[in-house]
């Protein structure tokens, strides 16, 4: 029997980056807010203290901070004519779980998409012609421009304290920054991180090649910083336990280090952990959310009535909840109709490893999640795509996030996989290897989408989300191009031997690639091709707003979090200045 709780003004599903920002700002505005998080409470001193956090086996190999597939997973198939099988062990991507979400254990790479990324469809047609677009693509312009989103990027960066060097400040190109970035209204809140030895080689080599390297914008802070919420952070100490780990010394931006201390002071905010929202409840006509239903750790069912429901879970789970709750028409690739599940995209990874031989001390263990030197010369439409026949681009970076030996023990090509020679090669190569990697865009396609699986279910008996996805020829060409550019750079850095890492095709769920899963509940100007309007408001259920990378019409050549944060403040602005007064659809057609 479902027990009914007293009504709240706002129910937030998931207490990650966007959930905690929404909660803080709406609690500040005087609303009664509850956040329901299916994972546990987590905080620095208890869960990632300096005495327990630096443990590669526990957190990087056994993946303790992440969602366990047993609780929820997806099924995957590459093509429409295949049967999807469950991802029984997460590999390619690692969905988060718990308070802080992915923002608790991310690397901290905080980018803004480039201005052309926001209108990649129109721009590509203008410059290269409509025929240049890849076959079966669903590429869409975003429903806002970079310039409109710029103040919100700025706000998010200031909450995080992002460390970087402005490259284009109000139209003026600044030395040391990224000259190809979109125009910024303000500097980064803290100066760029001090770079490591490997980054200095990359910077010199790339500059000599006529490219424009710059320090990668980082949410591992370069100095002590107090954000606009009054919350204070420490400088990063390059511990090399960044991605997949909580930060033990308050130097990685996360909901824990940037938002929760201010949020938890509000008595009109309540957090319920280890409680899973199973459904957004709708009125009889399906046009209004009445609240959510959730189960606690004893599987007791509760109903939480609310006037506004904010779906702020990880991208996949936003889409799944909408499908399970009947919010928006599910996408059907056969007919091409429907919007929920449409425009799923991912990220391309390709690169080159350089072996430098004896006499080098790269010291990879002295790393940080966003430490790196990057360049955008091959990103977005910053170069002439005409001769190459693909759309999209990649940021190219030399980075050291870590040197943790279970995963990182490189050997030169041709080394046996085990035995005495392997052991000697491991000993000699660890400190003399570095790599240059490309992180590239993925376009959206008619046959890359999410829906509910017909066979496999979760422990509560509900269908798992099914992913249909593969890398299309466009992405394969682009990855190959980037792999070659990466190889050129690492050779120019002085590598004696270079091995390249190609994009794995067909898409495989096995080795880790990236957790930049985008789309499925995209924003747009047309309800036929988007689930949400430009403010992240459901076209169908106006008191439901959805945040996260599920909003992206397609993915660009960067990590998504910066844009997720900017969109969150953009949506929040619309809720506070418009929706709270009108309680109506914010976009009239």
């Amino acid at each position, binding site marked *: 029997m479902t027990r009914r709780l007293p009504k709240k003004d706002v129910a937030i599903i998931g207490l990650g980056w966007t959930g905690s920002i929404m909660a803080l700002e709406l609690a500040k505005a005087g609303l009664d807010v509850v956040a329901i998080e299916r994972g546990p409470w987590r*905080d*620095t*001193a*208890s869960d990632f*203290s*300096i*005495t327990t956090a630096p443990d590669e086996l526990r957190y990087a190999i056994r993946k303790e901070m992440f969602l366990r597939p047993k609780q929820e997973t997806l099924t995957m198939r590459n093509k429409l004519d295949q049967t999807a099988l469950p991802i029984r062990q997460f590999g390619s991507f690692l969905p988060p779980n718990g308070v802080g979400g992915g923002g608790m254990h991310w690397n901290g790479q905080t980018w803004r998409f480039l201005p052309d990324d926001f209108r990649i469809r129109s721009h590509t047609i203008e410059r290269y012609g409509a025929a240049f677009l890849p076959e079966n693509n669903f590429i869409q312009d975003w429903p806002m421009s970079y310039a409109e989103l710029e103040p919100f990027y700025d706000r998010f960066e200031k909450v995080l304290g992002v460390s970087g060097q402005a490259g284009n400040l109000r139209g003026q190109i600044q030395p040391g920054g990224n000259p190809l970035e979109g125009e910024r209204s303000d500097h980064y809140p803290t100066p760029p991180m001090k770079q490591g030895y490997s980054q200095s080689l990359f910077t010199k080599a790339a500059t000599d090649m006529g490219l424009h390297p710059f320090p990668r914008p980082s949410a591992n802070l370069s100095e*002590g910083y*107090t954000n606009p*919420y*009054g*919350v*204070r*952070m*420490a*400088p990063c*100490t390059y*511990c090399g336990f960044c991605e997949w780990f909580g930060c*033990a*010394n*308050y130097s990685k931006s996360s909901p824990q280090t940037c938002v929760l*201390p*201010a949020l*938890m*002071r509000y008595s009109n905010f309540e957090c319920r952990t280890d409680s899973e929202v199973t459904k957004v409840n709708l009125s009889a006509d399906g046009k209004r959310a009445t609240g959510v239903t959730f189960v606690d750790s004893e599987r007791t069912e509760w109903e939480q009535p609310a006037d506004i429901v904010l779906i702020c879970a990880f991208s996949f789970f936003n889409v799944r909840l909408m499908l399970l709750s009947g919010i928006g028409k599910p996408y059907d690739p056969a007919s091409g109709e429907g919007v929920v599940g449409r425009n799923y995209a991912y990220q391309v990874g390709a690169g080159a490893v350089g072996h430098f031989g004896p006499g080098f001390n790269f010291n990879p263990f002295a790393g940080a999640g966003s430490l790196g030197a990057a360049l955008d010369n091959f990103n977005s439409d910053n170069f002439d795509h005409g001769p190459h026949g693909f759309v999209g681009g990649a940021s190219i970076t030399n980075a050291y996030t870590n040197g943790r030996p279970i995963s990182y023990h490189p050997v030169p090509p041709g080394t046996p996989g085990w035995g005495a020679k392997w052991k000697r090669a491991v000993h000699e190569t660890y400190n003399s290897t570095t790599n240059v990697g490309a992180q590239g865009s993925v376009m959206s396609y008619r046959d890359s989408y999410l829906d509910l699986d017909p066979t496999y279910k979760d422990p509560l008996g509900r269908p798992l989300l099914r992913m249909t996805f593969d890398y299309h020829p466009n992405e394969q060409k682009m990855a190959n191009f980037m792999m070659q550019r990466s190889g050129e750079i690492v050779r120019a850095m002085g590598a004696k031997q270079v091995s390249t890492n190609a994009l794995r095709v067909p898409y495989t769920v096995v080795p880790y690639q990236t957790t930049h899963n985008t789309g499925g509940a995209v924003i747009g100007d047309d309800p036929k091709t988007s689930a949400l309007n430009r403010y992240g408001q459901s076209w169908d259920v106006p008191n439901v707003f959805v945040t996260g990378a599920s909003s992206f019409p397609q993915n660009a050549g960067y990590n998504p979090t910066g844009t997720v944060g900017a969109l969150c403040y953009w949506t929040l602005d619309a809720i506070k200045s418009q929706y709270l007064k009108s309680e109506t659809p914010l976009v009239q057609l």
Partner: protein
Amino acid sequence: MRRVTGLAIGLLLLGGTGARADLDSYVQVEKGRYLAVVGDCQACHASAKGPLAGGRAIETPFGNINAANLTPDRDTGLGRWSAEDFWHALHDGHSVTDGHLYPAFPYNYYTKVSRADSDALFAFLRSVEPVSNPVDRNTLPWPFSMRASMVAWNAVNFTPSAFQSDPNRSAEYNRGAYLVEGLGHCGACHTPMNLIGGPKDSQHLQGNSIQNWVAPNLTNDSQAGLGSWSVDDVVQYLQTGRTLHAAAAGPMGEVIAVSTSKMTMPDLHAMATYLKERGAAGPASPAPLPKSDGQMAAGETVYIDNCSACHARNGMGVPDLFPALAGAPSVRQVDPGTTIRVIIAGAQVVSTPAAPTAPAMPSFGWHLSDAQVADVVTYLRNSWGNAAQAVSASQVADVRRVVAAPGK
């Protein structure tokens, strides 16, 4: 004050001869509300039933005493009291309901509160919602159950007295003294005690150990007191819970959260001025242990491996986040108990509106042995210009026994 004036005008506009009396009582109640914050009444008198409803057991080494219900309930609170009765409780340590009060209620400090302030406090207490909460006020075991025994205690430790302004000092200094020595009752924790639990007046505000929290020396002493702090540092600490060298956790954290962070800046400045200007008294500074000392070398290893990522190799920490250990009085107290317990059990810094972060020192208890804790504490106490007595493994074991027990 602007707020009061606005409301005063509002009340006057409501008209009628009653408005004047309402204004006076409104002003008095608001003054009393503020004084209740200064006196931190909530710290003892709050419970699940309400912020002043009493009933909470206050631990003393002689047993537990339940705090009184201060709400104006006629049967279980102060509903039948007069302002004169309240004055006698505050000033003389005598309750018209219960007889002699035990100095768990620090009447030996509150005696300095002026009659006007006492009346304002009482006016505030009369204005809160009455809560019915019967409290058993006689729970101490015999012979302490005999309240008449307080006569003897008072004879040794207490004389009712009024606050005396010092004409040779500034108005600000005197205000600070009035607050510190009266409602602030800082000495109740920060002054060492004699065998019967009374304050050792000769060592007033020179620091005290209460169950392995060390309330530090508050004189202007340079080794263990506020000597290296400016007046502004003291104000910042009381208002936000942190300075370069200190981050309030534990009992003082709560005092800051509930009381001092809500006081006015002039009052905080006055208290700071008084504490800084009333003189210095403290332990002699020993010579710092040399780096070659066995404990120092071992402690440095522990420090580099465990502590430097937050407190930095040079002991300077991160301002307003991780306290600087270099030059920190808390690390130089004669009793190293606070430093030891914070390492073993961890500690959460207080969250205040001005500084909400509340970072927490993790618990190292599972990770460091008694010897390692002793070595690193000795290292902290004798590095970067600090000098204080070395610490032994058995001292650490004693603290660990208390703070690392389950349920602590």
